């Protein structure tokens, strides 16, 4: 059994590695097709073509694409993620704190969203079609129907500028201080993400719980005279949590890669804006790094979710003993 799990993990890792290389190759190829390049971006509008050409040579942008790619790929293996020509820094040190920021915010919001969505899913499933369920559904539909940007701005208006003045409007983080010591600045972006996550996750959990509640083993638990609490939390929830976990993994990855809009609104120094800026600036090494990071997050969070799922789900018939 142990061996089987290890083999499974090893296989997943191998596939993931291939996947990552593919992702990086694709993105490398794609960025080559973009008009303009980093040299021209650095020199701006007043550069002469000669100057641009000189800078291109200096940055090895004239090397064959394959060679560029492999030199970059080779760097990865020695922990060198390339150099951001725009920032004038190695990518890792340029992006490092932003990566941390993004992960902190997404993780915090997720840590709240998961238990809350479980609870909410459980309650709404239990009181299916009653007013509370309908209210929560209406609320979640509305939250989801608003563009992220509008949602974020509404929260700012509510908590920072127009109605209440209790939270900072922007997540201005001092790079010198630990992000954890600047929690008030994180509240609004976390809240925005939290709302987006919970409204999606709770619906999944709700329907999973409804499914589970109609199973025979819940009916049997009921007939055994177990307390409602035990039935819900011990019998129903673990089984209902599985689909939500898988979704949570995807949501986590999506949030890591896709909170650009929120980063803009809160001036949050995360990787989303860094990515769009890097694409705009043709800062290839940064694009590569972030895309790979997002891809890795996606893969790792999925593997983790699969492992947790495997823990939660009992062996199938005929498996193990």
């Amino acid at each position: 059994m142990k061996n089987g799990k290890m083999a499974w993990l090893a296989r997943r890792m191998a596939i993931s590695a291939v996947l990552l290389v593919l992702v990086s190759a694709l993105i490398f190829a794609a960025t080559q097709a973009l008009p303009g390049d980093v040299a021209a971006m650095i020199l701006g509008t007043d550069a002469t073509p000669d100057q641009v050409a000189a800078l291109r040579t200096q940055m090895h942008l004239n090397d064959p694409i394959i060679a560029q790619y492999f030199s970059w790929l080779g760097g990865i293996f020695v922990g060198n993620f390339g150099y951001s020509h725009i920032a004038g820094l190695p990518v890792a040190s340029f992006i490092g704190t932003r990566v941390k920021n993004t992960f902190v915010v997404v993780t915090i919001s997720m840590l709240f969203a998961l238990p809350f969505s479980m609870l909410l899913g459980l309650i709404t499933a239990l009181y299916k079609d009653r007013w509370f369920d309908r209210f929560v559904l209406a609320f979640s539909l509305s939250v989801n129907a608003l563009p992220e940007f509008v949602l974020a701005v509404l929260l700012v208006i509510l908590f920072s500028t127009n109605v209440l003045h209790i939270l900072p409007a922007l997540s201005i983080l001092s790079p010198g201080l630990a992000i954890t010591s600047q929690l008030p600045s994180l509240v609004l972006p976390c809240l925005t993400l939290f709302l987006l996550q919970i409204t999606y996750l709770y619906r999944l959990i709700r329907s999973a719980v409804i499914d589970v509640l109609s199973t025979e083993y819940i009916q049997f638990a009921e007939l055994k005279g177990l307390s409602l609490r035990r039935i819900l939390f011990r019998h129903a929830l673990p089984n209902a949590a599985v689909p939500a976990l898988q979704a949570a993994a995807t949501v986590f990855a999506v949030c890591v890669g896709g909170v650009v809009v929120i980063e803009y609104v809160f001036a949050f120094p995360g990787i989303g804006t860094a990515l769009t800026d890097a694409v705009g600036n043709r800062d290839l090494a940064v694009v590569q790094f972030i895309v790979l990071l997002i891809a890795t997050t996606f893969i790792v969070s999925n593997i983790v979710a699969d492992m947790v799922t495997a823990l939660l789900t009992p062996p199938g018939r005929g498996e193990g003993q």
Partner: protein
Amino acid sequence: AQSETPKQGGTLRVAVPGSATGSLDPHRTQGFVADIVRFTSLTDGLTEYLPDSTVGLVLAESFTANSDATEWTVKLHKGVKTHDGNEFVADDVIYTVERILDPKNPTKGSSLIGFVDPKAIEKVDDHTLVFKLKKPYGLFPNVWANRYLRMVPRNFDPAKPIATGPFKFVSFAVGQESVFEANEQYFRGRPPLDKVVLINVGEEVASINALRGGQVDISYTIPYTQAKVIEADPGLHILNNPSTMSIPIYMRTDIEPFNDVRVRKAMMLIADREQMVKVALSGYGLVGNDMNGRTVTPCATSAVPQRKQDIEEAKRLLAEAGKSGLKVDMIAYRGTAGMVECCQILAEQAKKAGVTINVKILEMAPFIANYPQWTFGVDFLSDLYLPVATRSLLPGSPFNTAHWDDKEFNALQEKAMASTDEGERCDTIAKMRAIENERGGNLIWGFANVLNGYRDNVKGLVPYSVDSPLYYVRNIWLA
């Protein structure tokens, strides 16, 4: 505000538009506002602009020209110390000029002082230099006020920017935040502020929210349409800078369809400038008359009559040129507020004349990749008349987007530069501008004000027309 005595102390937090560059280098820079605010706090020029767009001395104590303005003697202030305690001397000036003009490492300011040959600078003593020029140059002291010509000491290292400026470098996180502290030894006196924190904020709404929420004291960016909100807030103020910034719509004069002056003129007649200023700039600006230079002080204002919308005449000209029903692509990018909007307004106005303008909004990278080869588009320039003319109206100059090459104009420009007599120079400039109006390649519909927002307790802010007041943070103090 000016009359009060500045109070010392405090940390000023400024929201500046985002930039991903990691450069603190005053010369090799992409030149975004954030970059400029940073390096102008750390460095000084030989001269600098004053709020009224005249030029004041900074590191230079005096400029003396020979009779035909081909040789300029510059005397430096004595006792100016860099942040690490070294004396700032003539060698540093020469180093800086060489650095700016280094052909291998192009810099933003190089075209401004293309007339200077670094080898022909003579160091007389540690505080005296003589610039020998090939051609006469009457406005020599003025040129050094440009923000891209800041002085750095020898062996300047952009990673540890040591210079002479009013603030010293503390920390810098690329695209995020930079922190500077007061230079106690500053030769013009320690600045009132203890510390300056520049925060990158990419999104306009965000920076306004930060200002309203009290997270910053100054927001560089205030969209025109938001000025009302700030003004309505008793704790906040708008600083309305009558900037020299123009937003020219260029038409390439060397290729179809705008090589025909009648087509260019038709476009100029199509534009309803009042509406463009009213809409694109929400009225925060001045109507233009197809000639550069919002102000040409100390010269007199132009006598050329203001061009007005005249659709019939435009149609007639187009018909005459055989270009009725013209269809043309127009390239815009989001350089500064009002740029994209003015294109869209022109496109709408052009419909009345049967002209179809298809506005394409480009990203920076593709825009730059083909710059300045676009046929029709919009750009922005922000400087006094002669520097603008030098860099964007002469053949081969970097921003000559219209590819304009007018013999008469070129000669006049040469004359204006060489002239040491103000009256003569003013006459020349007036002629140059008249030519621009008559057959230039730029539809200059207006000049944009620049709005900054600040909190009540911020003092010492005065409107600038050439630069931004934020390039002079040393004047600011907190009540």
